[in-house]
């Protein structure tokens, strides 16, 4: 029996096991929405297409499955752009489906026509314009395959309206044939032997872990490898939840707002093992002074990440799980040498312990004003271990990374590469849709929250019990901090002059709101919020001019930290 293009698309989604999609209707996707009613697919209507894409992203980051978003052509499609770029920078597996004007009209400046393929070419792993209904099933199959394999990423399918209406026989291809796309999964054996030798020869090793460890679901393998070598582990913002942050080997985050001891460890290491990380400039600071004494082993699924920013002594392209396991196996065969290495690096561990105790992550406590870091600590104490945390972008995001101490993989969603304000609330929508029973908390800033606050409606409509914690400093705090430190305290356009009544805002949407203005109210508000069914907004009026410390000024070496303001 023949099916229409929109039915074929929905059949394909079913074949891919998609149960939840996020989107927003419009003229060129109306057929898909019409047919969707007949399929067991849960559609969540966000209040903005950007939010639909971030929600699909939050769904994907927390489940590891491919997130799906749908938007109409023209403004619907352009509204997805920030969401797609966010996912692309952080390697999140997603398929975005946009409607397009009918093929005969393409190129004619038709109503709501944009060249979304052209616009998204550089922010997708791949994208497709479907030109013939006969290609549709194959393209959807390929899109999902490309999105989730290798280094994951978003794939966009632009589907013209006439193709949704046309009909064809539905056959879902069994296999994907892409002669130009064959990711390398298995690490090169000789390279791994060399890596094992380098590790055994090291006396000051450091593991530097990025988001790839989450993407590869390699947390357990990483832990085993780390414990075997006893090497300290520092993580990027993206790698934060891939390694238990309360583990004695954990050094926390490195780079611009990294811990003193992580940055000192990297600067003094004799071997740096980069695991699914890409030496971003926020991590390396001044490249020439980054890990100056270390040999570098770089393990990554994406060959383009290797030697892009830094010299690498030993590259290994492959799946992190595979490579870490094989490295662990190789090391455990060299029992004696491994013991020598572990014993030989005792001095290194002592050095690190000394840095940890001389410069711990800390802040000036207060009993008169709410310190933002204190709110993060209280959230950590009062939430479950498997609570999912999303953030927006700014100071609150960095404090979350510094003080939350994540303990389980896929519990932290934050826009690392693009730094997208407005990401956290819609990402929480996606995470909560994926895990209705778990605690999902968006740690937000007063500025960022207002970039997608309309998603309160989505939370209430779908009874998604997301808890929002706004650290309200009435500032675009992170920018203000830069102005304070590097621009003569000229606070140009960073005070949020109009005080918003966030509690009332929540209530206007039918959600619950609580506000804390004094330190002693913080834990009470969190407890109440967690105990209240449905979405709750918590507003914490925090110390307005608190700064994120330590800080490596832009362009400085990472051991040249400003420690306190």
């Amino acid at each position, binding site marked *: 029996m023949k099916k229409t293009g929109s039915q074929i698309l929905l059949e394909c989604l079913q074949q891919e096991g998609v149960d939840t999609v996020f989107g927003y209707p419009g003229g060129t996707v109306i057929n898909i929405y019409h047919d969707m009613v007949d399929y067991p697919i849960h559609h969540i209507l966000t209040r903005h297409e950007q939010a639909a894409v971030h929600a699909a992203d939050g769904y994907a980051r927390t489940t590891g499955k491919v997130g799906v978003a749908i938007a109409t052509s023209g403004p619907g499609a352009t509204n997805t752009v920030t969401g797609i770029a966010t996912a692309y920078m952080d390697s999140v597996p997603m398929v975005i489906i946009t409607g397009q004007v009918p093929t005969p009209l393409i190129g004619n400046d038709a109503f709501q026509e944009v060249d979304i*393929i*052209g616009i998204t*070419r*550089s922010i997708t*792993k*791949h994208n497709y*314009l479907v*030109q013939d209904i006969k290609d549709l099933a194959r393209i959807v199959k390929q899109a999902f395959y*490309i999105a989730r394999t290798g280094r994951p990423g978003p794939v966009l399918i632009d589907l013209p309206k006439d193709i949704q209406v046309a009909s064809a026989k539905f056959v879902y291809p069994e296999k994907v044939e*892409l*002669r*130009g*796309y064959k990711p390398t999964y298995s690490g090169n054996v000789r390279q791994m032997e060399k890596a094992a030798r380098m590790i055994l020869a090291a006396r000051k090793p450091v593991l530097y872990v990025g988001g790839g460890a989450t993407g590869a679901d390699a947390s357990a393998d990483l832990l085993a490898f780390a414990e075997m070598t006893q090497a300290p582990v520092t993580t990027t913002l993206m790698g934060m939840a891939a390694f238990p942050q309360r583990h004695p080997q954990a050094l926390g985050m490195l780079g611009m707002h990294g811990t003193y001891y992580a940055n000192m460890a990297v600067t003094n290491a004799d071997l740096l093992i980069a695991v699914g990380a890409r030496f971003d400039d926020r991590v390396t600071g001044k490249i020439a002074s980054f890990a100056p004494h270390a040999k570098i082993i770089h393990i990554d699924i*994406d*060959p*383009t990440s290797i*030697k*892009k920013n830094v010299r690498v002594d030993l590259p290994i392209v492959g799946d992190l799980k595979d490579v870490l396991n094989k490295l662990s196996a190789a090391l455990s065969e060299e029992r004696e040498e491994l013991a020598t290495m572990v014993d030989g690096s005792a001095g290194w561990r002592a050095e690190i312990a000394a840095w940890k105790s001389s410069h711990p992550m800390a802040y000036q406590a207060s009993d008169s004003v709410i310190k933002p870091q204190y709110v993060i600590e209280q959230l950590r104490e009062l939430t479950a271990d498997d609570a999912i945390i999303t953030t927006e972008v700014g100071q609150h995001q960095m404090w979350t990374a510094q003080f939350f101490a994540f303990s389980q993989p896929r519990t932290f969603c934050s826009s690392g590469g693009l730094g997208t304000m407005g990401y956290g609330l819609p990402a929480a929508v996606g995470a909560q849709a994926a895990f209705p029973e778990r605690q999902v908390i968006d740690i937000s800033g007063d500025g960022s929250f207002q970039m997608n606050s309309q998603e309160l409606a989505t939370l209430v409509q779908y009874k998604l019990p997301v808890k929002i914690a706004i650290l309200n400093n009435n500032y675009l705090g992170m920018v203000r901090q830069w102005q304070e430190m590097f621009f003569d305290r000229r606070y140009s356009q960073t005070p949020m002059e109009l005080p918003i009544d966030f509690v009332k805002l929540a209530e206007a949407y039918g959600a619950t709101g609580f506000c804390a203005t004094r330190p002693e109210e913080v834990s009470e508000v969190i407890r109440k919020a967690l105990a209240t069914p449905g979405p709750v907004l918590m507003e914490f009026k925090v110390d307005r001019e608190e700064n994120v410390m330590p800080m490596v000024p832009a362009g400085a070496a990472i051991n040249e930290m400003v420690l306190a303001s």
Partner: protein
Amino acid sequence: MKHTISVLVENEFGVLTRVAGLFSGRGFNIESLSVAPPLDPSVSRMTIVTRGDDRILEQINKQLNKLIDTIKVTDFTGQDYVEREMALVKVTAEEEARAEVLRIVDIFRAKVVDVTPRSYTLEVTGAPTKLDAVIDLLRPMGIKELVRSGPVVMGRGQ
């Protein structure tokens, strides 16, 4: 250093823009680019001349390979290969200069493909360096128009 890279890609919608966009988006330089399908119409062959140090060339190579539509990337630098380019040159040729142009045509085994009382249009093929030499000789006579195809390359032997 100059590199001549041959890229075999799927003959898909928009593939040229993907490759060109990759170069512009990452700040790689393209000195010339020629594209046409070879025997198999499902693929397309691009020949790109670019410049850069080893690190940049390594990135160009890897980034090209990363494109889903890329089947094979060959950097011919340091290999044994044949490289040919064609140029069309419209050169001023009046009175005694006409004979001089024809002498150059003869020496470089070029061809006259169009004649007017005041100009010749020449077709010159060969290695890019040969084209450079011909153009240098013709320049003093007055080149009215010049079109170069950009080189195409092929490895020698089997």
